[in-house]
């Protein structure tokens, strides 16, 4: 049975917030996550609030302080085709290029990518497949198939741009009824796979603001089919060269309900020159920092090894990039 969902297209941010206050209503970005979830009975919203007529959410703009803002409803295609952004923030462009397929990028929005629902191989299945299983936490039940000892859902956030925005130091404007607030991109995620966003009912992301001085950075992703698949693991690393020290952010995604900042690896890399041994050691710290469960396509061991591998590969690439730009490693 197909559910019928109301689709509304308000033209002001205030109306969006008001409509979101109604029960069972959700933002509709490009629908490339919502629609397949609805088709499989996983999304049962009564109302979808589409942002395409809200000016703040559909623009890319530059303020007087040199900071670029991207409206949450801007499509991935529009960011990739923007005359300035891909050149200024190649880390972001690489992450966007890694999302899904050309047709999906033509439709998907950047806000939808950040807020993408978490996924799990025990849940993201057709209804007939799920008939054989009692509901788990995310479906209203009281246990988890992927992590039977866990007291909460550990479904995976598969967003490719979330680690990129966190590494870039992007800030998000959260629109709410009382007032709007700015949060760090990492603060968007709770760590619980069931309610994975820190947004309160009625709150939504209006814009994403990038730092005026883009850091150097790399993005890498491991997936089964390079042409289309969600990440089994992804990584974004940035280095902002400062006067005496440099600020570094290493963020791993798709191994937990939210992205993970790799603080130990960051510390290790800050302690000395980036020779081969240090890169190997830094990449190895990931095996202690992440605890994936058997809910992706690849098994737990495979995902840990893939994480270590892409981290090492990304660090090598970043070291070369820093060499070319004359930034000391």
């Amino acid at each position: 049975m197909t559910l019928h969902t109301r689709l509304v297209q308000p033209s002001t941010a205030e109306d969006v917030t008001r409509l979101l206050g109604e029960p069972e209503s959700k933002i509709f970005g490009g629908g490339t996550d919502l629609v397949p979830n609805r088709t499989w009975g996983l999304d049962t919203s009564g109302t979808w609030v589409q942002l395409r007529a809200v000016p703040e959410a559909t623009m890319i703009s530059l303020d007087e302080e040199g900071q670029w803002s991207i409206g949450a409803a801007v499509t991935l295609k529009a960011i990739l085709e923007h005359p300035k952004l891909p050149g200024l923030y190649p880390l972001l462009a690489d992450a966007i290029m890694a999302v899904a397929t050309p047709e999906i990028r033509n439709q998907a929005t950047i806000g939808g990518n950040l807020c993408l629902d978490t996924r799990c191989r025990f849940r993201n299945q057709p209804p007939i497949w799920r008939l054989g299983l009692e509901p788990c936490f995310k479906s209203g039940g009281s246990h988890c198939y992927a992590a039977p000892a866990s007291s909460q859902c550990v479904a995976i956030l598969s967003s490719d741009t979330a680690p990129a925005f966190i590494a870039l130091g992007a800030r998000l404007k959260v629109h709410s009824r009382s007032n709007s607030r700015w949060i760090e991109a990492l603060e968007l995620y709770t760590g619980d796979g069931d309610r994975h966003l820190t947004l309160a009912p009625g709150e939504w992301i209006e814009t994403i603001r990038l730092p005026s001085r883009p850091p150097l950075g790399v993005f890498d992703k491991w997936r089964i089919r390079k042409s289309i698949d969600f990440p089994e693991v992804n990584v974004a690393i940035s280095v902002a060269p400062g006067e005496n020290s440099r600020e570094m952010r290493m963020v791993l995604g798709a191994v937990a309900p939210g992205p993970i900042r790799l603080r130990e690896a960051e510390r290790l890399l800050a302690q000395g020159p980036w020779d081969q041994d240090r890169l190997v050691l830094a990449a190895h710290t990931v095996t202690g920092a992440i605890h994936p469960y058997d809910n992706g396509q690849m098994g737990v061991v495979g995902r840990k090894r893939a994480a270590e591998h892409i981290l090492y590969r990304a660090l090598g690439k970043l070291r070369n990039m820093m060499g070319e730009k004359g930034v000391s490693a």
Partner: protein
Amino acid sequence: MSEGFVELTVNGAPQALWAQESATLLQVLREILGLTGTKNGCETGHCGACTVWIDDVPRLACLTPVGSVAGSRITTVEGLGAWWEESHPSSHYHPVQTAFVEFGAVQCGFCTPGMLMAAAALLRDEPLPTEQEILERLAGHLCRCTGYEQIVRAIRQAALTEVKEL
């Protein structure tokens, strides 16, 4: 209200349809308009068989609620030949359609409508694409029969024929 009239222009003809606004464009094309050229392969964005142009941009009809594109221009595989004929009055088919037949790029034909819509959009944007560019554009299109070789060759040939004629 979740149901109402939705206006669209489909293959050049204006349409006003009574539909659920959350019904997918794929359901509307196939079940209301009878345009079954656009295929339903997976209904979840994984195969590319349902690719159509929405305001000239290739997108997946199975991921598009019809209400979200109200007022748009839709081109399906049934309208591809006519779209081409507008600028090339001597031919009824788009060169990729002819090349797919010539090169045996069609076996069961299920993926073909989606492949054609993606390929024709590519040649519109990039008249002489490299093999790599073709593969990148077809990343979301699965074919279970041909092994892709003939499809890529057909698109290359269609591009070369067109460039020669320019």
